[in-house]
């Protein structure tokens, strides 16, 4: 059961994020929603690569006596997560800069008031 906790956390994070995106009316809070979903997905990736009792897959600084592939956490998901985090930061920066522009033009951050294009 205890090993399923990360997966439950993943689902919870994604649903909380979606909730924030659908029901929060502030643009910044929507962006926070996206970030929460992203954390959920990243957590999922990391959890997939974890082996019970394993150490970080840094080849040059392994504790002595580690079995070489089996004792390490699986490295590929960690690489994927790193990439995903980097992309996430770029997207986040872009979204926030757009929000600044939106605030300059509309003077509000309410998602209902910036729409209006039928």
């Amino acid at each position: 059961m205890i090993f399923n906790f990360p997966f439950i956390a993943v689902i919870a994070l994604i649903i909380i994020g979606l909730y924030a995106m659908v029901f929060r009316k502030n643009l910044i809070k929507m962006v926070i929603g996206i970030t929460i979903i992203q954390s959920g997905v990243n957590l999922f990736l990391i959890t997939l690569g974890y082996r019970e009792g394993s150490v970080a897959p840094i080849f040059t600084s392994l504790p002595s006596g580690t079995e070489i592939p089996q004792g390490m956490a699986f490295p590929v998901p960690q690489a994927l997560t790193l990439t995903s985090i980097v992309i996430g930061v770029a997207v986040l920066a872009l979204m926030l800069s757009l929000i600044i522009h939106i605030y300059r033009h509309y003077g509000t951050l309410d998602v209902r008031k910036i729409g209006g294009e039928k």
Partner: protein
Amino acid sequence: MSFIDFLLQHSPALIVAIPLLGAFLTPLISKINNRVRNVFVILIILITTILVMLLASDVFSGNIHTYVFGSQDLTVPLVRILFEVDAMSAFMAIIGSILLLVSVIYSWSFIDENSGLDKYYTLVLLLAAGMFGMMLTGDMFNFFVFLEITSIASCALIAFWTNKGKAVEAAFKYIVISSLAALFILFSIALLYGQYNALNIAVLGSVIQFSYLDKIALVLLIAALAMKAGIVPMHMWLPDAYGRAPASVTIILIGATQASLYGVFRVCFTLYGNTINLSSASIGWIIVLLGLITMLIGVAMALIQSDFKRLIAFSAVAEIGFIFLGIGTGLTLFANNQMFGLIGTTAMSGGIFHIINDSLDVGLLFLVAGAVYYATKETSLDKMGGLARHMKYTTIFFIIGLLAISGIPPMNGFASKLLIYESTFQLNPILSIVAILSSIMLLAVFVKVFHSAFLGPALPKFNGVKEVPKTMLFAMGIIASIIIIFGLFPDLVINNIVDPAVNALINYSDYIREVIPTFTGGF
């Protein structure tokens, strides 16, 4: 090994690498001179286009190209990224390269009076790299990365006119939708990875089981990619984004949207190819029904728009419905061998032929809208009128686009719609009826545009309007001539370009066998 062979062997990598390198060289080059920069960008895209054509001509003759980044030793798992180019990928890359080439030629004059053009061209080239990457890659995670590159570059380009609030707003909507879709794609990639310990499409395709988790992954992938492709009711970002971006950007966005569409088909036919008998009926019908409502709602919304580009964007949505209808019909009948041979392949070649027709027709119309904006600085149809007096060539290009998008013979739209009508009716007559109806309504939509923008009395406020510069006319002329050629020789196009792509989708086992030679599934 001759130079051509060398180019051919490395072209999958070069097609992505050249625009990527060019993107980061552009700011440096633009220090010299604006004209040099424009020539440089056109040259980069031209070289890429030539490489795409070279690669495509080889792929269409039956070879599947793979290109390995990383360890060449295939027995070690997971330490490489694979590019795999089959006919479908090459077909999409051709569309992308044509749209890009036209866009950069058009940009020369269209975007000339704006500042920050070095950034504009950098982003265009980045978008090109991302788009080609999505089309050529054979790796799911790589697909996600290129999707994000495409999204970020497109978002920045949509917001290029930051002085307009609506453009920024559209860009914000676009990036929210894109990143949400991309996160769901990543989540489903992780689901697949957790089960099969692989990221490569071919490897995944060879072992996929259609388990409970696979079904979740399939649903999330289709929903997310369909949203990126602008399928109703998840299309609403698309008119905002298409309508507010500069016309030269919109035409590349069409390519980016088609790349997501390509993702849907790649997932349905190749990634889940091994279990297609289990999934085809339900997923196929979903795609068909989504296509139907996409057509109807897209065209109905287009009918009541009064903004030129927004109107075209809604009809672009409707056109994507035709593609979904054609390919969905093929997918629905996939498990039924006899019916599939009879009508499934026809429907699929109709759908795939319509991908290229859609991007050309809609692209031409967007360029015309951009030309009208360039000449009059108006986007609202309510404020235009009588422009045919001043812009004769643009009017002719608009007429070609009008006839092509509504499928009036002898334009290219007619050939692909004919294939779709004459195959889908055997699955259910209603499908063809709705398709014919939407096609006629598309005609009505653009006749309305023709009247309110180009015909009517000479309005005094447009007395000084002149025809747009030659480079813009040239860019429109390229697309218009391709439209007419495709319309006059549909048989050649079907045999030489479309059918290989259809066969590549159907014979998913070839795609898998290129990576795993021992694979024995499929036909």
